[in-house]
């Protein structure tokens, strides 16, 4: 890896790390998700620090270009993650629909009871 690229990747990884640590501290993200992103930023930093290790893994798998390995693993991580988010969103919208209906019914019922009281 070129030295300029190394610096860029390193800076990117560190800023990623800082952003997600602060997000978790301010309780903007659930710990589960932040841990996931923490791992991603650590992986980024390790690309620079353990460059030789990744090259070794790549040759072991018969891949001559180490960057290809990085790209493939990143894309597969993102795909799995997006799939996970789709599942979560589907669950949440189903639950939301149930809640909206039931809050509506309860709100209506309370209004009725109050009207009966005041009559």
């Amino acid at each position, binding site marked *: 890896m070129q030295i300029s690229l190394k610096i860029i990747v390193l800076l990117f990884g560190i800023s990623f790390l800082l952003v997600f640590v602060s997000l978790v501290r301010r309780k903007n993200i659930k710990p589960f998700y932040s841990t996931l992103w923490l791992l991603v930023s650590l992986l980024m930093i390790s690309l620079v620090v353990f460059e030789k290790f990744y090259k070794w893994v790549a040759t072991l798998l018969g891949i001559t270009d180490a960057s290809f390995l990085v790209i493939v693993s990143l894309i597969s991580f993102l795909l799995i993650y997006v799939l996970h988010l789709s599942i979560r969103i589907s669950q949440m*919208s*189903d639950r*939301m*629909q*149930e809640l*909206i*209906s*039931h*809050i*509506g*019914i309860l*709100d*209506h019922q309370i209004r009725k009871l109050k009207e009966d009281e005041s009559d």
Partner: protein
Amino acid sequence: MRILTVISNYNEGEIIEKTIEDVRKNASIVTDILVIDNCSTDSSIEQLKRLKVDYLKHPVNTGGSAGVIKTAFAYAHYHGYDIYCHMDGDNQHMASELDKIVEPIASNEVDVVTGSRFITKEGFQSSFARRIGIHSFSRLMSWVGRRPYSDITSGFRAYNKKAIDYFALKFKQEIDTIVQLELVMHYAGLKGKDVPVQMRPRETGKSEINFVNAFKFPFYNMISFIGTLIQKPK
């Protein structure tokens, strides 16, 4: 037999009074009226209070009229209604035609009845672009459902207790489109039928059709249709 007529309302403040008066005066059946408000941002709620009509308000918007239908099922089940009739708040559906959609259910012929404008082709027939969309989805649904569907997006429907219980107790998922609702009912083994009715043209308010929606609606319907085909709910 207890019948509930639900009028769905989303920002129909200008026309909702006419719709309610129509049901109060011209309804051809004995029915309770409930307006379900999908969290309108206009003066609808003040209108409903002034008209002293029974209303239920969603705490947030569900992003589609199918959400109102799900609430209506839950409400009808909660209060033990035998039949639930649905009308749109824009006064396009006629209260004098309510008996036509209730009759096949009262006689235990089918579980769900849809009022269709396109059987006898009388009254308001909708715009050309919209008709193409409705017809193609109706053909598609007729092919999957093995019975003639003619006005698949019609909101003028009646459901019996079997349908109410199914959606209130068993089917706990969000429904995105009316076309999807039709498919879910087919898979649930609910028998359906279309009956000819007349509808009025829209008087006020803006139609949902604009440049973006003209592409969005068919696309969105197709996606949810294919997804439901794959899912095949039990």
